[in-house]
């Protein structure tokens, strides 16, 4: 009985850490400083150990949570995302005077929900996990209660999120009606067995699920919430949700569509190709016009969602690890970029406009160099991780015969370099008229930034091992 719970141990660790954060907060005297973030790190370490022990064992709990290597790989990504996000949260929580206990607890619950979503092998669990993480992230988005902008961002995010959840749920309903089960294995085998596919009912199920996922990964045309939510949330939360939510959603996306709905690939593949192309183009083109760094990175993350969709479409024998590898590099890189923004956030001054970066090099040469690394990696320059990841995706797409998508991808990623380099130009080549606007950099955050940069170079220069892991991991689901 106990052993059947093995698969959810990583989530239990993180959840326990979240509860501990709540308890600690409730015993905190007003004004007392408590290392609540440390509790989160302890929980994540526990989860990491559990993940390591579960590796290769393919444990399943009640047949609804499968700790297969695919799920565990994403769990790893989420542990990294969580640890870095907590490290970057320090300055935000302090300067914005956010309620620390609740903040970290919500973040940890969100991570637990993400892990659950990544390992769930049942549509009902995926839905519940999605809700756990979504609700936690809605609240985190609006946690700066004194800011009207944050409240509006939270509401828009909540509204479109709840709206899309109903579509997702409707898709689950049709899947259930179609096969009598919500379990992905059964759904897959029953759909494969139904002769004259695709039936209208199958298409309806696929279509509604697709809409639900498209909202969560902010694919065009369901991306409208992204820039507002990213801009309104505190920067550490933005980094967290742009990477963690995406990783969890893509994990579930891949699992549902590459296992259960694999027989209908011919149908969803076409729709998804159009969506992916539009997502890359819109994300890049609109991103060029932004003057706020967070908004710009929001569009950039939309475009990266497009690349991930390409990876999903092109998931064949050669390119099937591309989704996981891309998720990992994107998570580390994007989180690093938002980490820099979080560190520069001054409480009374957000410092998040492109023009605020003028002369950053003179005041914080190290931060400017790190930001450059993150941006270049997002733009896909060698020898950064982004290059290997994009190469993986595009070459997989070409091998799968999706030449058009590969070409759109290459073109948009070059256009995106221009908006990334706008910040580089600002940091290095212009000087600011108002000196000393940037706060000091806390130690933990700078260590986390350095770790991200090292990971980016590691994945860019010696990617072999992780690439092989990614390919092996995803082969546990299809």
């Amino acid at each position, binding site marked *: 009985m106990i052993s059947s719970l093995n698969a959810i141990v990583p989530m239990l660790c993180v959840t326990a850490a979240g509860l501990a954060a709540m308890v600690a907060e409730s015993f905190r005297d007003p004004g007392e400083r408590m290392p609540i973030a440390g509790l989160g790190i302890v929980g994540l370490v526990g989860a990491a150990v559990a993940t390591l022990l579960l590796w290769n064992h393919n444990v399943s709990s009640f047949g609804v949570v499968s700790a297969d290597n695919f799920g565990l790989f994403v769990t790893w990504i989420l542990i990294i995302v969580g640890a870095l996000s907590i490290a970057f949260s320090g300055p935000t929580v302090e300067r914005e005077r956010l309620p620390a206990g609740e903040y970290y607890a919500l973040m940890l619950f969100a991570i637990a929900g993400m892990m659950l979503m990544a390992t769930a092998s049942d549509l009902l669990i995926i839905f519940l996990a999605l809700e756990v993480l979504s609700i936690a992230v809605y609240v985190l988005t609006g946690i700066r209660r004194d800011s009207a902008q944050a409240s509006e961002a939270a509401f828009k995010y909540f509204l479109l999120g709840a709206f899309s959840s109903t579509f997702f749920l409707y898709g689950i309903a049709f899947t259930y009606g179609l096969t009598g089960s919500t379990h992905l294995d059964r759904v897959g085998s029953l759909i494969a067995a139904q002769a004259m596919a695709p039936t209208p009912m199958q298409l309806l199920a696929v279509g509604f699920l697709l809409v639900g996922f498209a909202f969560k990964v902010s694919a065009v045309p369901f991306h409208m919430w992204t820039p507002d939510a990213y801009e309104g949330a505190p920067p550490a939360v933005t980094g967290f949700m742009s990477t963690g939510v995406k990783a969890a959603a893509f994990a579930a996306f891949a699992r549902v569509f590459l296992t259960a709905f694999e027989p209908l690939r011919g149908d969803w593949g076409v729709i998804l190709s159009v969506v992916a192309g539009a997502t890359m183009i819109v994300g890049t083109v609109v991103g060029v016009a932004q003057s706020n760094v967070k908004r710009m990175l929001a569009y950039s993350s939309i475009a990266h969602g497009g690349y991930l969709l390409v990876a999903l479409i092109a998931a064949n024998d050669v390119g099937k690890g591309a989704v996981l590898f891309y998720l990992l590099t994107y998570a580390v890189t994007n989180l690093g970029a938002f980490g820099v923004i979080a560190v520069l956030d001054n409480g009374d001054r957000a410092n998040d406009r492109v023009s605020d970066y003028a002369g950053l090099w003179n005041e914080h040469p190290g931060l400017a160099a790190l930001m450059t690394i993150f941006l270049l990696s997002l733009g896909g320059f060698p*020898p950064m991780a982004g290059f290997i990841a994009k190469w993986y995706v595009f070459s997989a797409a*070409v091998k799968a015969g999706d030449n058009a998508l590969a070409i759109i991808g290459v073109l948009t990623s*070059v256009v995106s370099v221009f908006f990334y*380099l706008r910040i580089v130009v600002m940091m290095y*080549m212009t000087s600011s008229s108002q000196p000393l606007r940037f706060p000091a950099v806390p130690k933990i955050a700078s260590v986390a930034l350095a770790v991200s940069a090292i990971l980016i170079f590691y994945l860019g220069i010696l990617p*072999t091992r992780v690439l*092989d892991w990614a390919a092996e991991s995803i082969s546990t689901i299809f």
Partner: protein
Amino acid sequence: MTTYPILSMITFLPVLAGAAIFVCSERVARWLALAGSLATLAISAPLYSHFDKGSTGLQFVESVPWIPSWNVVYSVGIDGISLPFIFLSTVVSVLCVGASWTAVQMRVREFYASLLLAETAMIGLFAATNLFLFYVFWELMIVPMFLLIGVWGGPRRIHAAIKFLLFTLAGSVLMLVGLITLLRASGTLDFQALAATRPNAALQSWLFVAFTAAFAVKVPMFPVHTWLPDAHTEAPTAGSVILAGILLKMGGYGLLRIALPILPDAVRLFRGPMLALSAIAIVYGAYVTLAQTDVKRLIAYSSISHMGFVTLGIFTLNRNGIEGAILQMVNHGIVTGALFLCVGMIYERTHTREIAAYGGVAKLAPIYSTFLALFCLAAAGLPGLNSFVGEFLIISGAFDTRPWYGVMAVWGVALGTTYILWLYYRVALGEVKPGLRALRLDLDLREVATLAPMAALVLTIGLYPESVLGFLRTSVAQLVVASAASAAVVGGM
């Protein structure tokens, strides 16, 4: 043959030195950069002494699996075509460090780190034996160059840096598309394997367009040359020297390394237009040069004309033309690099690049003027100096195949003599301009030491061209034979 990984050492030593610079003080940074680039030059010595001039294959080969699951290999090696470029890169880098000694006072560590990173990218590019590595180093070159122009450049540096980036990225995106297509078509990215399994003729044409677009931007060929004058004018001296000395050669090298051996049928198909564009670049570049009033801009436009000779030589597709083209690239790197150094040295004193502000410099600075005269004469193609040999070979190659282009090239040489001698006349001879008298114009020992190696090279190659040609003869012969063989196959079909 050596037993230690000499090519990897010279490739990565500069970037390691560049990383080390960040942990030391600004004063030490200069010395460390000098030591790093000198050490690279020293280590590369066995490349020349142990090079087998009679072999057609790759030498000093190192091959390590890099990403086995994608069949991507880290493999470097050189033949007669890449060796002169590696030589050029190592030498020019040392001189750039020397040339920036006093000119760069702001952000010294970052400057030298960028310079050394650029050196790694250049050497790696010329040593790479597969397309993946080639592309990695190609892209790696962009960022340090962007920073060199944009951070340490002149007043319109941002404009110039962004223009440089715009053109270069537009080129490299096409190359990336071509690269992925080629990988899919041939299943390999190794240069030799690719040359053995050529894609079909229709695909070759597309690939040629994609790759040549990238190379043409770098060369730069007419009509994608417009970034070069801005970049040259705004870049700091070391940046201009790297641009002229090496970056432009990446394009010519790419044509020789990728277009000719891998896409021979397409090369034949596009030969006419490419020759025409080259001839236009020679003549148009020369005429525009005549009209310049800014020294750096003048040299920049003369580069376009000189690089026109290079592409003309390459697309003659015969031995003389290609040997001449490679020699011309080396010579152009030396001569134009040296001219930029000369301009930089006097600019440090006068802070103007207007030709009209100079005059009679020969009377004030005899050593400087001697060097300037030597390099100007070399640029003009005086027999006995290096450029003469290259241009002669290219023109004779052109007369062998397309005489009219040979005529255009001769015309270009005549124009080139005019503008460069006129430049010398305006700067060094004539009345001494009043503003110049108060300045200490002549060179100090460091500057002499920077220019002297260039002068020595000008004379050595001019008097004994075999010193370069000897290395590349066999490889070029093989390239021409392979290319002709493919033409025979196509003709026979």
